[in-house]
């Protein structure tokens, strides 16, 4: 059975059909949630919450063909909600550098996975989400805008600022050893 048929059945209250949809889309939702939240427990909670909300709100979905982006949007909102529960989450970046040749030498080798990890975890959930949608799911700006429910121009600027914030986070991390007397975290 096609996704659309299942969605239409689920919209009419067919729990079995929704169960099939949940199995089909569950792995993708979990992969996205983990990449935004970077925590297994919270990712599981976000997916569980998203599936319940999706079930509850499904009759409001007008176009069954848009189920997947609609579900992604609900998931992203659930990730925001999970993220907000953890208070130490938000960014502590104090200065965003302008584009240009300002990066310290350490930034030339972004391949360091731990640096990326630390930098990414400094970002607020909205910026994490847009980076995941773009670099993990491979969505273009129009699709990101559609998923997040924002205008394409906003998606463009948000992605731009997410990249800048990521660079700033990496730069802050690169400066940290000097500030901490050469001690790496």
């Amino acid at each position: 059975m096609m996704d659309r048929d299942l969605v239409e059945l689920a919209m009419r209250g067919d729990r079995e059909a929704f169960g099939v949809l949940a199995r089909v889309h569950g792995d993708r939702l979990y992969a996205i949630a983990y990449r935004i939240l970077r925590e297994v427990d919270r990712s599981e909670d976000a997916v569980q919450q998203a599936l319940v909300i999706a079930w509850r709100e499904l009759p409001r979905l007008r176009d069954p063909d848009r189920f997947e982006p609609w579900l992604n949007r609900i998931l992203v909102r659930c990730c925001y909600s999970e993220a907000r529960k953890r208070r130490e989450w938000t960014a502590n970046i104090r200065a965003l550098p302008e584009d240009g040749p300002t990066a310290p030498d350490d930034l030339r080798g972004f391949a360091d996975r731990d640096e990326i990890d630390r930098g990414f975890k400094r970002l607020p959930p909205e910026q994490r989400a847009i980076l995941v949608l773009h670099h993990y799911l491979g969505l273009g700006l129009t699709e990101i805008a559609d998923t997040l429910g924002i205008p394409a121009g906003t998606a463009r600027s948000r992605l731009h600022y997410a990249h800048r914030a990521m660079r700033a986070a990496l730069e802050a991390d690169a400066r940290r050893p000097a500030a901490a007397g050469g001690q790496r975290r």
Partner: protein
Amino acid sequence: MTTHRDIEPALERYFEEGPQVLPDRVLEAALADIDHTTQRLGWRRPWRFLFMPTFQKLAIAGVAVIAFALVGSTFLTRPAPNVVGTPSPTVGPATGPTPVRFTLESDAGDIGVRFDLPAGWYSFEDANVSAFEPEGPDSLWPLIGVDVLLVDDVYADTCEGRALSEPRLGPGVDDLIAWIRARPGLMVGEPRPLSVAGHEGVEIEVDSGHPPGCEDVPVWPSGLPLGSHREGPYLIRRAMEYRVIALDVDGRRVVLVVNGMRGTFEARLDDAQVVLDSLELEVR
């Protein structure tokens, strides 16, 4: 020169790692929750109606008209009821030309609000209690909306929405307006006196000032709005425009926030005005 492109491959490699398979127990837990969760009514016509014979549709429509007339005449001959009762779980959309009257009260039951929900607007229980016109049929973001809030506390920090201000914000309209004007990270207009629903207050335009380190500026906890079930800070979002109206309602500060997507906000203010013009506020 270092550009965004330097980060992209590293991010893509970074995102390749991590789990890809949802544990069965999570899926089972979600499905168990769903077994006890009722779906909301959709705005589509019920499928049964689509396949109903025409004469049956006409008969049902006729009964509905008569019922509406009877109910309407009953209400027209009665004085207006007090603002009581819990918020409707979900109202909307108001599809007809006549706005839907929407009534709600605060969780504490000490304040009541009534307003007309214009045609095409919705109100959701898990958003702030608000009337809002969605950007699209499945959008969770408003083109324009009106939130009705009780703001008793504000955040002390600019970006994180972590610490509440101490000492607490004063109770008056002017206390809140003064705080907004002094709040780092916000761009604000000049405050203007106004009256809404017979209550005096002050209106001020508020915008995210794009402070370093955050796009969206948390201002007060979302848990305080009337009937809200949403968690986390109320955010002044970069992508949106805001008009904050603080009213003195019999000594209680009630805050209305007209908000909408940047670029459509101005053009849709008339719609929001329908809500404001129909507003009734009552402190009990």
